[in-house]
């Protein structure tokens, strides 16, 4: 593996360009290089691993049992990447992907805008695989913008990369397998969690049970039981929590919650929120990939074929960015996507490709078993997706509340894009990552129509920050001069 740390050292064009160095991206890069493709792996973090294996080559948390065996499995993926001929560009962002300008020799090429250390450049790629992973589902409760309130995943990253644990009275709240995992990791590292507020709707159990047989034969079962039993020891767990708010002026001071008919308020210094993860589709959306609403995972999922190629030719999505499946599944899907790209580039015959992919697909089938049970069981409650209280902030950047959104639906605004124009929601620096799903679901709910009818934000580049100075330094064309210098 060759590491590049400045834009000037990048080639003009790569056969395969991969965005994101998590499990899917690392495996896709190694698989691309293994086929002899010139392969570039771009990642915005300083070291490979993505979020699930964040800091795997640098973590100061030496005791293996703290982060657990599943975390350390990432080491093999890093080794495979390091041993490959792929080019790796850390601390590098991709801010746009689009069709290459007319006049290039190969019309199928894509043009990728990259930025490293304050300098931007446009390079080309014959195939692109976005391995942009997942992000935590928005958790819009009253007070979620207060300092002291973070995502549980955020606390996990602080642990992995810096050996930091939350201090004082720590409350974790939400639902999903990762919540239990993160809690176990934090406790193993020495954090004291005062209480866990489990928001899994009790009625989900009844629905999930239908999918239990697969789950009982899946590796999730053993892991899940261990986490559940572990959690019961030495920590209060409140189940069936139906409302949560964080309170304080400049910092969270207490958390108030309801379970059954009871209301409680507990002092709190750190509140960690988590209710599952959703695909990070900002790039796919800006590129113009067709997206579908997934009613189980309650999120937008890009349409992909058997090789994870999207509706945009030459642009594939591997890993959780194409639908949540977890780290193991992501790595397998990274391999399949890179084999598909190799075939499209004429490097592998269809037969070769299929043969190489067959065992990976078998393993993927096994790794995905039981997933549906988890999706159904941990489908977050409506009250935590669509805030009931009108003063709850939905768009954190522009500070737009649920009440304002509902009021504007009543004016006749039928979708998130007109909503953006009216209220600026989704127009801040996070570009709707933290409010997009909520805004779609809230409008759908207020109008009494399904989210597919409402749609999502339409995004445009840059999907990562780029300065005007960087943009100004890019090449111009005669057509651009005609369009601007009139």
């Amino acid at each position: 593996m060759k590491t590049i740390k400045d834009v000037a050292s990048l080639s003009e064009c790569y056969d395969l360009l991969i965005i994101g160095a998590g499990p899917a991206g690392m495996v896709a890069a190694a698989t691309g290089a293994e086929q002899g493709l010139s392969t570039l792996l771009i990642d915005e973090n300083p070291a490979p691993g993505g979020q699930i294996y964040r800091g795997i080559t640098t973590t100061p948390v030496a005791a293996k049992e703290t982060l657990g065996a599943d975390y350390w499995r990432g080491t093999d993926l890093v080794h495979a990447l390091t041993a490959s001929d792929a080019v790796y560009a850390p601390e590098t962002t991709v801010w746009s992907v689009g069709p290459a300008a007319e006049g290039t020799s190969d019309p199928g090429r894509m043009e990728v805008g990259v930025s490293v250390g304050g300098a931007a450049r446009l390079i080309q790629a014959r195939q692109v695989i976005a391995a942009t992973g997942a992000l935590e589902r928005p958790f819009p409760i009253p007070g979620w913008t207060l300092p002291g309130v973070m995502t549980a995943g955020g606390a996990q990253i602080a642990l992995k990369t810096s050996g930091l644990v939350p201090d004082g009275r720590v409350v974790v709240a939400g639902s999903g397998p990762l919540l239990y995992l993160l809690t176990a990791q934090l406790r193993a590292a020495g954090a004291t969690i005062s209480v866990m507020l489990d928001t899994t709707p009790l009625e989900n159990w009844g629905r999930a049970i239908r999918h239990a047989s697969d789950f009982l034969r899946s590796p999730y079962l053993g892991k899940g039981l261990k986490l559940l039993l572990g959690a019961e020891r030495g920590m209060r767990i409140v189940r069936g929590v139906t409302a949560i708010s964080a309170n304080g002026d400049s910092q969270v001071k207490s958390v108030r919650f309801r379970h059954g008919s009871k209301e409680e308020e507990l002092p709190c210094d750190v509140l960690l929120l988590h209710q599952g993860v959703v695909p990070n589709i900002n790039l796919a959306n800006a590129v113009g990939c067709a997206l579908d609403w997934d009613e189980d995972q309650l999120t937008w999922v890009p349409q992909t074929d058997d090789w994870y190629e999207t509706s945009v030719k030459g642009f594939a999505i591997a890993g959780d960015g194409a639908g949540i499946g977890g780290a193991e599944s992501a790595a397998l899907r990274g391999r399949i996507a890179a084999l598909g790209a190799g075939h499209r580039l004429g490097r592998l015959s269809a037969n070769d490709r299929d043969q190489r992919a067959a065992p990976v697909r078998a393993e993927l089938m096994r790794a995905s078993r039981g997933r549906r049970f988890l999706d159904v069981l941990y489908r977050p409650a409506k009250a935590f997706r669509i805030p009931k209280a009108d003063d709850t902030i939905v768009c954190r950047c522009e500070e737009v509340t649920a009440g304002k959104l509902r009021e504007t639906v009543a004016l006749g605004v039928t979708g998130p894009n007109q909503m953006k124009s009216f209220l600026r929601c989704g127009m801040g620096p996070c570009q709707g990552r933290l409010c997009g799903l909520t805004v779609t679901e809230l409008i759908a709910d207020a109008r009494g129509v399904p989210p597919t009818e409402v749609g999502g934000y339409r995004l445009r580049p840059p999907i990562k920050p780029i300065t005007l100075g960087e943009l100004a330094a890019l090449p111009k064309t005669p057509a651009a001069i005609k369009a601007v210098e009139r």
Partner: protein
Amino acid sequence: MFRRLPDLGGETVNFTIDGRPATARLGDTVAAALLASGMESCRTTPVSGAPRAPYCMMGVCFECLVTINGIGNRQGCLIPVAEGMAVETQKGARAIASEYSAKGDAA
């Protein structure tokens, strides 16, 4: 808000927060270093002036925006802290006019 686990080893990095000396562990991002320093918030918003602190730690929420070496609105969770780095908390919208004149004075 956060504490460091004992016996981590590793090198120490000296930097400043709003001019006050602080230390971090080599490999920390600016946001992690701020959490470790016990700092409550890293900025106030340009919309209402409400205080905010790092939220996602993975570059998606843009809550950990701080001024680093005189440049505002940098994502603290993506930038490794470096020896001698000057980190400043932000109040409201980025003050580009004073950033620019400070840069001119330094040059």
